[in-house]
């Protein structure tokens, strides 16, 4: 099977302090670490598992600035065969829609059986790239995918719904799968694979290679720290004092 994985390099913000920069439109990034978007690590693993089973190739594609090549190299070390970076610096403001449009321009010339993306990126939280890309390529898609099982011509796909329910679909290939987190165990890269990946060429495509006019759906006007909502009554004091008050509250509610 020939597979494509779309990967994004994002700042790791889940446990970090995040501040708005002087432009008011971006965050201060110099104290953050960057890594492959969490859902994309599962998308990549899903593709590698299929390649292990059926053979074929994996092409990793990332729309990003030069640093994204580090992330693509990780994908190469884990099991991708080739990698493409689309120069984000050439294309101005991006959103999920425009990202998908640029990916489509590259992918339309590649033969593929399936495309894997993360279901969303933690930086811009769009949930868009997978389904938009599928629509532009004219192939079916599924989002929030928790399982892709290929047999003969049929593909069994599970989607994760709210409330712990699974939607079981049957799809045909080629298709796009936007993968949910936690669906497999992303692997490490071995030192041998890392060495091999270090020597591989990453194809870089810029404005001159993708001479299409693509526009975003939206323009970011400003970034700001979310206003605080209804705040909890904060109980203060030593652990013992706080515990005593909390126990009192729980008792008042008739729960002890």
């Amino acid at each position, binding site marked *: 099977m020939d597979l494509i994985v779309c990967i994004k390099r994002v700042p790791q913000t889940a446990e970090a302090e995040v501040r708005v920069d002087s432009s008011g439109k971006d965050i201060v990034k110099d104290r953050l670490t960057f890594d492959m978007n969490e859902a994309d690590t599962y998308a990549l693993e899903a593709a590698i598992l299929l390649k292990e089973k059926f053979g074929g190739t994996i092409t990793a594609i990332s729309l990003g600035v030069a640093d994204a090549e580090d992330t693509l190299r990780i994908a190469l070390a884990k099991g991708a065969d080739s990698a493409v970076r689309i120069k984000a610096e050439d294309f101005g403001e991006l959103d999920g829609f425009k990202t998908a449009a640029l990916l489509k321009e590259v992918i339309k010339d590649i033969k593929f059986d399936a495309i894997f993306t993360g279901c969303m990126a933690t930086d811009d939280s769009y949930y868009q790239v997978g389904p938009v890309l599928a629509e532009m390529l004219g192939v079916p898609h599924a989002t929030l995918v928790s399982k892709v099982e290929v047999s003969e011509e049929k593909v069994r796909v599970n989607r994760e719904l709210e409330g712990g329910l699974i939607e079981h679909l049957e799809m045909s290939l080629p298709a796009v799968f936007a993968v949910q987190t936690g669906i497999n165990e992303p692997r490490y890269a071995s030192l*041998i694979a890392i060495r091999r990946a270090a020597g591989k060429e990453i194809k870089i495509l810029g404005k001159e290679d993708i001479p299409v006019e693509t526009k975003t759906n939206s323009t970011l006007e400003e970034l700001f720290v979310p206003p605080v909502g209804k705040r909890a009554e904060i109980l203060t004091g030593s652990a013992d004092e706080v515990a005593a008050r909390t126990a009192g509250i729980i008792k008042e509610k008739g729960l002890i």
Partner: protein
Amino acid sequence: MANKKNIVVEINPEIREALVEMGAVDAYKCYQCGKCASVCPWFQVGTYEFLVFRFPLETVLGLIASSEDKDDLAREVDKIYRCVGCEACVDQCPLGVKMPHILRSARRILVDFGSYPENLKSVVQKIRNVGNPLGEPREKRADWAEEIGVKDYSEEMEILYFACCLPSYDTRLKNVAKATAFLLKRAGVSFGILGAKESCCGEAIRRVGAESVYQETARSNIGNFKESGVKKVLVSSPHCYVTFQKEYPDLGGEFDAVHSTEFFWKCIEQGKILPKKSFGKKVVYHDPCTLGRQSGIYDAPRNILGSIPDLELLEVEDFSRNLSLCCGAGSGALWIDWPKGERMADIRIKQLVDTGADVIAVACPYCLQMFEETVKAMNLNVQVMDVSEILFESLGEDEVR
């Protein structure tokens, strides 16, 4: 010889070169006598196979973290992160092979490719983001000091006190920082802290393999030390101590580092601190690997404890001084959760408690943290204290202010 199997090993000179380039040059020295394995803490733990003497050969053959199988590779990476950097092996090696450096070279490559445990990634991220592994805000770094009126460092002061991360933020360990500050005041030493400008010394993440974040963090400290005119740095953690002593000079940071136990023993000798209150307990001293084996400081903490009235100092027979067993927190292991039954701290606590001690004395925040947790988990009736805390308690009532 029909059923004799051929052992075919694919040798990877490329991996060897990469590892050597990253610092594994000692691998060539090893002749696999196996002495290291007998002192490795994993040998005492006994439930996890960690054949430390094989790493140099595997390095030379280029077999480290080389499996193409996902699960095997996960086990190999786990193994590489099992080394706690205690250097018991280095201490015993007839050729002085630095085994932790060999493994660290592999870690550096793995870290560059994001192929290392998630818990450790999070630690590296937080140190880069806010300068401490706990992800606590910088502004809170000096909260412990504000509570007791410790000043910011200025050039005319004799000493910069560098509490580092756990004693700055952790509720239990703040007490170590506070005791240290009180003792410095008592000894009449002029000292200050860098507060929010202080970042983690970087020791742990360097040993995890995150070399670039280590260098960035270390350079930030070195820059701040220089800017503030720091000459002498007093530390509570032996991990800061070795980093300042042996590793910051490579980045242009030459400062005189002193561990609190050395400093306070000198103060006692000079009569600046007078332990006079009876302690009345049996105390066993645990040699932290980084203070003992790695820095050669065995006597200062014992001398301090020995000078305290009515303190019976005990030793762990056979496993004391350079043969002390690691608490299991070094080289990033503080943030890795090994399965029950595979924890060094459990074994070490047993050795310490078997001496009949009421108090386990340590001189390292990692050991303190590990032992506190283990004592709690095992429901043991024994106290864990830093030497500075014991010394502080032994000051006369009139001296505690």
